[in-house]
């Protein structure tokens, strides 16, 4: 829905509600005498007060609540939450648990990126209102995308118990170890959908990147260690600095703004971007195999200063996650699955902080526990909240660069830009400062 109010001197250009994004948000640009007065990324998804709700809750129950912050990033919230608890109580997990968690997070990337790339972002570039109308001309691609998405959900189901808000991944390990048969089925499915991930790269690399949004852009992502991935203990910034995850408050500097239930983040006084583009740019040397060669082939279309190239970065990650999940499964099958029980441990008064990469970028969970293992206070910072200020920065640049153009053109550009962040607005609305 688009509306425009013209007064004598000032004018508002408003996208009331962004479509093909998760959750409820809009963009508002105020002009006065032809100049931009203000730009707002309005987040009007209602507040959900998760940090308030979990007060006094026993640690064991926390991930069951916090994974419900978001449906499409449910496994990322699960793993961030479980990791923060494990850090608090110094819980060690086995290599098999680490491998199964790695598969789970790759599954989430596959499911989420397949949905965003094919069903939410591509219709813009191909000129359709949605994937269903796109299917009338590109039926094979839409069917292939659904198979790819389904493979991501197969992983969710095998590892966590179901597609959304699974419960099998626990503090200390997995309640029920997936069967060898499940792993073999996932492996076969991953091999079958690999060409679809390459198709995603080919399709997105085939479009010219718009230039209307190019601007200075700071990137932030987890340091994945030796191989490209989504789990780690420190944070990389595009100014070449590296920070421990426990310093996340210095990296985000959140503040409340009136037009948004998502707080805004800045780093050294400036907005920054998290997500696929940040990960791929900051760790591209760690990509391997097909993902590495596709990155080399198309790196001119992966530009730090052009946030719309986040779509192509997601496609590169799809290729990586399909290959990597298959490799980890092959190793597990070669080693033989072990029936491991959850790690046992004691609770005590303590604090634990953990960062993971959700599909949309860095996610932090920070918990402080009482000595009986119940939660005293918490802080959760989601990727879309971190990106909110950067989305406003881009919206301002676009409004400046397209001033004088027809309003419909500006609105379309704003929508394409915002959608490229793959915003997850439900996630963003309950950031806490206790």
């Amino acid at each position, binding site marked *: 829905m688009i509306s425009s109010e013209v007064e004598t001197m000032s004018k508002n250009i408003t996208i009331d*509600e962004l*479509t*093909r*994004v*998760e*959750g*409820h948000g809009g963009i508002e640009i105020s002009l006065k005498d032809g100049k931009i007065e203000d730009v707002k990324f309005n987040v*009007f*998804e*209602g*507040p*959900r*007060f*998760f*940090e*308030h*709700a979990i007060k*006094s*809750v*026993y640690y064991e*129950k926390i991930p*069951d*609540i916090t994974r*419900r*912050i*978001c*449906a*499409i990033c449910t496994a990322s919230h699960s793993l961030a939450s479980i990791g923060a608890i494990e850090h608090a109580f110094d819980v060690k997990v086995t290599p098999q648990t680490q491998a199964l968690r790695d598969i789970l997070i790759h599954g989430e990337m596959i499911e989420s990126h397949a949905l965003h790339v094919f*069903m939410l972002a591509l219709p813009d570039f191909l000129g359709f*209102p*949605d*994937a*269903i*109308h796109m*299917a009338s001309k590109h039926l094979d691609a*839409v*069917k292939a995308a*659904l*198979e790819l*998405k*389904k493979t991501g*959900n197969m992983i969710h189901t095998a590892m966590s*118990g179901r*597609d*959304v*808000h699974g*419960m*099998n991944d*626990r503090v200390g390990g997995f*309640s*029920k170890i997936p069967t060898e048969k499940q792993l073999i089925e996932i492996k076969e499915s991953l091999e079958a959908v690999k060409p679809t991930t390459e198709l995603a790269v080919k399709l997105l690399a085939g479009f010219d990147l718009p230039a209307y949004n190019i601007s200075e852009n700071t990137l932030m992502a987890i340091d994945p260690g030796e191989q490209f991935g989504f789990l780690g203990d420190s944070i990389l910034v595009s100014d070449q600095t590296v920070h421990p995850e426990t310093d996340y408050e210095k990296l985000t500097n959140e503040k*409340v703004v*009136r037009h948004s*239930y998502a707080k805004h983040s800045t780093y050294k006084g400036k907005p920054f971007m998290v997500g696929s583009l940040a990960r791929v740019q900051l760790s591209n040397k760690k990509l391997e195999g097909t993902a590495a060669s596709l990155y080399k082939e198309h790196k001119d279309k992966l530009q730090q200063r052009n946030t719309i190239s986040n779509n192509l970065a997601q496609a590169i990650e799809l290729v990586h996650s399909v290959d990597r999940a298959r490799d980890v499964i092959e190793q597990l099958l070669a080693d033989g699955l072990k029936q491991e029980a959850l790690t046992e441990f004691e609770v005590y008064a303590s604090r634990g902080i953990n960062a993971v990469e959700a599909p949309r970028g860095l996610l932090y969970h920070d918990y402080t526990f009482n000595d009986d293992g*119940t939660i005293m206070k918490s802080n959760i910072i989601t990727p879309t909240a971190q990106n909110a200020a950067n989305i406003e920065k881009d919206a301002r640049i676009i409004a400046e660069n397209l001033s004088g153009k027809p309003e419909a053109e500006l609105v379309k550009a704003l929508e394409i830009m915002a959608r490229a962040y793959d915003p997850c607005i*439900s996630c963003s609305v309950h*950031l*806490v*400062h*206790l």
Partner: protein
Amino acid sequence: MSKPKLGIFSLTGCGGDQLQILNMEDQLLDLVSRFDIVDFQEGSSRKVDGDIDIAFVEGTVSTEHDLKKLKEIRARSNVLIALGNCAIEGCIQSMRNGETTLSERLKDVYGVEEGFFDAKLSKPITEYVDVEFSIPGCPVEKEETLRGITSLLHGDSPPYYSYPVCVECKLNEYPCVIVEEGKPCLGPLIRAGCNARCPSLGLDCIGCRGPVEGAENFAAEYQMLLDKGYTKQDIMNRLRVFCGELGDDFLGGGDDE
């Protein structure tokens, strides 16, 4: 005959119930071809005004904006279905409704006074409008939702479960996690329809499908968990997540700790 007009709407929540519709990868294209989809904000930029034959609404009413939107949807819709625990019971954002006020929460989480935003105390949609049917769960089960949609297409009602999770657990012959392991399973109180998924994984039911209609055994469950050594605070926290605004009048003065 023209296709029925379908709207899929979300208020405040995690988006998980409409995601479960998108997760029907094998049936999605066939399913959407049976309808004229007039509104699906998460999936499409297409919006068509006017009457709706079937509307699905997920989420809670947590802002004035949510309430206005809900009332508009109700006025346009012939059949309105509450989709998921948020819409039916209020889920996590309502779990402290009996305990803390909106202004305490705003101060706690955002450090601001009431009125800074247009926030309301979160309530399920059933507090504000009548609904013809509801499909429970956090999130809803894909198969149940698919059956619900196809039933409606044929003029029938969605499935309804009038018995608790324990029934499905016993039919599957899973070991009882309360009896065998002393886990705080909520299965005796909770609507079936998930095929006892949590016990199948060796876990206690956390209650995500909400209380079975007419559940009168809250006090018995509470007493049983107290006897097993769980604290009042822990038991109440577990019950409140998916069971709506739950006072403690059912406790009948049960002993604490």
